[in-house]
């Protein structure tokens, strides 16, 4: 095991896949000499050259169009969308093209493309550089979605995404880039559709996405001192989604909190809650709680942003609500 940052782990995944398969190439805005806005692709230009590490114009639609077209004809593109907010400029290529072409063509095409998309707030980047938009894409059949919450998963999920013959979005959490964690030395992949039981517990299940896993862990430590045993599940991928793991846990604990940084309304927490409610209804001891951003654009002022976005305090309070229900 080596300790490295989330950023370094992602770069290592890219490096390994570029070395593994000549068909893999990277494209995006400022990803070459500059190394990307978050320096994830730094050094890769020197290692793999300008044929494979490719700067693009500021043209998100053209970037993803190139990814779709090259993936359809034999290459394996890894495109970077500098901030996931910028998906707004390129939605057609994801939603109407990449997600649907195989199906529309009766299975005659494979589109092995990966989109890396930094997501999330807590940086005073304000309303257009801070969003978590995974729900947009979970709503569209045909796209896989990964949301790594730690360096080891960041590497293993990205490698799996690149090897997957389908369009995949990997949402990288900007606040995790500098976070360090243990990463295996030997080659490995983290499979899609297999949740990680981050912490075992008996009283309440917390399903947490991306950096909400760390906030859930913090809340769980506090709650443990107060006699509440929290189980934390990180689904790691939303498509496919390991509902079996979540349902199994809910049947054990009888209580469910779903936590993500994205807006609560219309967020994937609602979908997870609905499925869990349907499949584990008879086991539930309290209504399912959702933790997410309040329904407002992300404000600039740090204190306002803290007001909007969920953290460990919100998880803590939601757990207390399900524990206290009816009591």
């Amino acid at each position: 095991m080596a300790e490295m940052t989330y950023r370094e782990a992602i770069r290592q995944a890219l490096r390994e896949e570029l070395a593994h398969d000549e068909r893999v190439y990277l494209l995006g805005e400022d990803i070459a000499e500059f190394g990307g806005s978050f320096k994830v692709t730094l050094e890769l230009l020197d290692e793999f050259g300008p044929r494979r590490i490719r700067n693009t114009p500021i043209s998100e639609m053209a970037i993803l169009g190139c990814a779709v077209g090259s993936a359809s004809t034999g290459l394996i593109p890894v495109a970077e969308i500098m901030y996931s907010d910028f998906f707004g400029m390129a939605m057609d290529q994801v939603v109407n093209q990449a997600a649907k072409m195989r199906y529309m063509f009766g299975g005659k095409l494979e589109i092995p493309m990966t989109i890396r998309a930094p997501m999330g707030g807590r940086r005073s980047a304000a309303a257009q550089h801070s969003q978590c938009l995974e729900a947009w894409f979970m709503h569209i059949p045909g796209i896989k979605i990964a949301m790594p919450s730690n360096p080891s998963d960041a590497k293993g999920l990205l490698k799996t995404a690149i090897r997957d013959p389908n369009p995949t979005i990997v949402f990288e959490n900007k606040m995790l880039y500098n976070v360090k964690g243990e990463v295996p030395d030997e080659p490995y992949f983290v499979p899609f559709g297999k949740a990680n039981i981050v912490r075992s517990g008996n009283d309440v299940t917390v399903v947490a996405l991306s950096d909400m896993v760390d906030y859930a862990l913090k809340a769980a430590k506090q709650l443990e001192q107060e006699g509440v045993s929290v189980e934390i599940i990180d689904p790691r991928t939303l498509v496919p989604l390991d509902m079996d793991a979540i349902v199994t846990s809910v049947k054990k604990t009888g209580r469910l909190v779903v936590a993500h940084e994205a807006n609560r309304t219309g967020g994937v927490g609602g979908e997870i809650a609905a499925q869990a409610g349907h499949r584990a209804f008879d086991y539930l001891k309290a209504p399912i709680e959702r933790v997410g951003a309040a329904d407002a654009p992300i404000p600039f002022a740090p204190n306002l942003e803290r007001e909007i976005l969920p953290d460990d305090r919100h998880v803590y309070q939601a757990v207390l609500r399900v524990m206290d229900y009816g009591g």
Partner: protein
Amino acid sequence: MNNEIPIDVALSMYGTMVRIRRFEQAVSELYARGKIPGFLHTYIGEEAVAAGVCANLRLEDKIISTHRGHGHLIAKGGRLDLMMAELFGKATGYNKGKGGSMHIAEPDLGMLGANAIVGAGAAIINGAAFTAQYLGNDGVAVAFFGDGATNTGTFHEAMNFAAVWNLPSIFVCENNGYAESTPRRQHQKIQAVAQRAVAYDMPGVTVDGNNVGAVYLATRSAVQRARSGGGPAFIECQTTRWRGHHEADQQHYRPKEEMLTIEDRDAIRDWRNELLARGVSAAQLDEIEQTAAQELENAVAFAEASPLPDPAQAYTDIFTPVSEAL
């Protein structure tokens, strides 16, 4: 000029245009009889563009098409029976009945799909062109689109992207004077659509899209240039849409005098006359017509007799299955 086109190519283009015309006339009639569900956009009057462009392409070269895409697939070698079955929504169609008229595709022929999002194909074709460039072969990739598409942001992003990466992308604008119902003077100010190319330092030409020879020759020079690493090109083909935007369109927006003269320019009739002038016998041309008519008759019978897709097919082909061993 047209006399320099080899006679076998000239005859092949004639056959392509005839096959497209017969196919489109048949589907128009079948649509009216309720045999074809959904939307139907026919290519009648524009045949010379697909035929002239694709006569320059190899099997491995890629094309991407529009909602008005039947002609492009036929010109790239599509089989009329599998196409007809697809338009009928039958299991035997090119795409198992899941795509239909607006999404018909055959990647094995290099046809990356009719695409019903106006402008989208211009961005995708760059990826196909990049694959050829990246692999170091001399393949080219052609996007077809209309005059209306040249007002989308995607089109402009794609043109710039192709120019900057020096891709073997060829952008073929089928300028039929209408963006659906909106006449061109109401949707863009430039005199010639080909002026768009200037902004991207890309060669742009305007040709008579009713003259298959002119389309062929303009494409030939663009393809030769792209194959030898010279980068992208833009070709505007001025053409005429004989029928409505789609089959239900009554075309009240087209002036009466224009409606009366639409069929004055007939690329097939003109090309037939050129071939006769070059010494091809009428009998040989008639035989091409009869072969197409027979092929079409078989195609309709095939589509009629084919089964509907099994309902279980609605749930397949969403994802490519992932093998256990990565």
